[in-house]
């Protein structure tokens, strides 16, 4: 029996709007949380605040100019995105980059994976509530690698260094020493962050057993990258569908056991170590030689055809579906965004948790809004 007084105390669920400008949304993501007290009972994600037509614009510029939209789309792992785009064009054009260019690409892509994961760690730690200290630690290490990129390409973020067929110019003389030094420094840096975060009891209790997603669900939602590997599925395109020269290197694929937020964090930490391993092996094996094929045409005209090229980016499977109907410009260029697919599972992960967990779970997806909205 409900008394009059109890009826007056009826509670309502309120909608809390997080974003598009909110410290936790890593950009301009917006989600409307329906909360009952501190529990989230429903979440409606809204994206598209940064939809700026990279696909449409790529159709209107030629193949070399289209590279700049790859940088700006995947703005935390630019080299990986450039690599995917270049390989898609190469597959259609029948170009084969020379050995040295392949090694340079692998080294830069793996270093870029490290910088991207550093960015994740910084932002994720801030989501769990660390007052910028993990962020500055991660950014210090990130800057070391970025200095190499800067010295090599002339820009800190939008490199535009790869070309269909190879790379634009050769690496400087001190490249190998600098990369070797940075590999050592990265190992130290990861250990630093390990000591700061990984074994911190509060951090563990914040991340453990939240945002769990099972393996069948992960496949069903089309998750990829560390999100998928945290569920225990050792699927990595570098191993399962080797592109470029990834089959020449020894590296481990870390997988999680629980599929929760903490596993995603650990998988990313371990991936950084494996990336360092790959970079070191690639430095050992890197031959001398040309960086562009001899017969590379000055103006790329692709034969008609369609190709879906995919690479393993820090956030998952990055795909370029390229339709050519002859000519200098792509007829259609679709960017398969790992973040977009990873975000589809957001509702299943968040509902039932606390508001504070919602922020952490969103952080563990490691979204890049440029890639989600394109």
């Amino acid at each position, binding site marked *: 029996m409900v008394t009059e007084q109890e009826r007056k105390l009826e509670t309502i669920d*309120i*909608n*809390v*709007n997080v974003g598009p400008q*909110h*410290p*936790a949304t890593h950009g301009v993501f917006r989600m409307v949380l329906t*909360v009952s007290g*501190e529990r989230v009972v429903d979440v409606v994600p809204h994206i598209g605040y940064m939809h700026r037509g990279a696909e449409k614009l790529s159709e209107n510029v030629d193949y070399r100019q289209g590279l700049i939209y790859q940088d700006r789309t995947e703005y935390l792992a630019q080299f990986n995105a450039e690599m995917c785009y270049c390989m898609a064009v190469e597959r259609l054009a029948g170009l084969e980059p020379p050995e040295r260019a392949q090694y340079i690409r692998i080294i830069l892509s793996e270093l870029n994976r490290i910088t991207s994961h550093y960015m994740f760690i910084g932002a994720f*730690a*801030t*989501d*769990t*509530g*660390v*007052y*910028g*200290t993990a*962020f*500055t*630690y991660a950014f*210090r290490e990130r800057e070391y690698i970025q200095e190499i990129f800067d010295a090599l390409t002339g820009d800190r973020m939008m490199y535009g260094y790869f070309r269909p067929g190879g790379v634009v110019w050769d690496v400087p003389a001190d490249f190998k020493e600098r990369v070797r030094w940075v590999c050592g420094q990265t190992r130290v840096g990861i250990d630093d962050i*390990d000591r*700061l*975060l*990984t*074994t*911190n*009891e*509060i*951090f*563990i*209790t*914040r991340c*453990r057993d939240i945002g769990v997603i099972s393996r069948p669900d992960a496949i069903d939602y089309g998750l990829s990258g560390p999100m998928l590997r945290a569920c*225990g599925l*050792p699927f990595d395109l570098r*191993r399962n569908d080797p592109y470029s020269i990834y089959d020449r*290197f*020894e*590296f*481990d*694929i*870390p*997988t*999680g*056991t*629980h599929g929760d937020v*903490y*596993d995603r964090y*650990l*998988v990313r930490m*371990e991936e950084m170590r494996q990336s360092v391993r790959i970079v070191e092996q690639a430095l050992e094996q890197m031959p001398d030689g040309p960086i562009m094929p001899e017969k590379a045409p000055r103006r790329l005209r692709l034969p008609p055809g369609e190709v879906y090229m995919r690479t393993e980016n820090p956030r998952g499977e990055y795909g370029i579906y390229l339709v050519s109907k002859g000519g200098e410009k792509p007829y259609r260029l679709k960017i398969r965004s790992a973040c977009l697919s990873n975000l589809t599972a957001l509702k299943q992960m968040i509902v039932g948790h*606390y*508001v*504070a*967990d919602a*922020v952490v779970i969103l952080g563990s997806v490691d979204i890049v809004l440029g890639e989600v909205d394109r």
Partner: protein
Amino acid sequence: MSQLGAFFDNVWVDAFWRLLVVLGLMVFVVLALTYVERKFIGRIQMRLGPMRTGPYGVFQPIADMMKILLKEDLRPASADRLAFELAPFLAFVPVFLTLLVLPFTARWSVRVLDLGLLYFLAVSGLTVLGYIVAGWASDSKYALIGAMRTAAQLISYEVPLVLAVLALSMLAGSLNLVAIVRDQGRVPFIIWQPLGFFLFMAAAVSDLTRRPFDVAAAESEVAGGPWIEYSGIRWSILYALTEYTNMFALCVLASLIFLGGWDWPLGLKWGWPWQLVLMFGKTMTLILVIMWINATFPRVRVDQLMSFCWKLLLPLAFAQIFLNGLVLVYHWPDWTFLVTSGVTLLVAGYVVYTRLPLGAPSRIVARSAV
């Protein structure tokens, strides 16, 4: 001369100039702590902190203060006007009142109350009202959630705070702060009450809503909590003034009742300059420790915050009281305080530590290369 002396002996005049001194001290402390925090956290984060405003940026807090005072004082159209405008003062006044009973040296405080400790705890508990009113009046959901969290948090953590102080006052046999400090001339109470000190500091950090207990203001969740809608002078009262004054007051209290205050070591012998140095050093150490924790720890979740208080701190506080009672009733020697309290702290720490999931990296199953 005697006329002048008589003038200053007047109760009202005496109270007035002492109040003025405390007010000036408070403003100075707030400005200094703002600067110290930014510098200190900057160094922890491998940055320099403010450098350009004056030599080493020492005028940074003054610039901040002048800027904030001249900012537009916005009030949301849908806010409750009276409550919105009064809430900052509701939060600030209790904090200021706590400063009145703190003896900064052996002979100098605004008032020495026999129930000083009780007065301090009672008055400082009122701060939560200001936050609740601010959060409710802002008519923003973030502010409301933040205010509800603040209410739950501050009221819960008041309990272990009071119980830890209660256990200590059993030792001293008094609630008079001067008497408590005088009791520690030989050994500061932290030696005899390590568990009590831990409880007090944990509750104090939570009382200050600092990391790891800053769920109320959680920047990445509710973007500032109750004071999200405040700007200009009201924001500075609600946030900066209240927070830093509260931090200063709690750390002064902790150094008085646990670290021996102005007495230990040799305070009474060497006179008031040494007492001031002692107080400054102890208080500053505690403040820096709080800032250090603030800079490095993640934030706990709301339910973890509550269970930490009710399931861990509260039983331990009762245990401390019980142990003190045992020692006092059976007239055991003083060192048994240290043994009982310390052993309890170590056991509790060990149990909590082992029940938490350590050895975490072993969860990763790495597939080796083919």
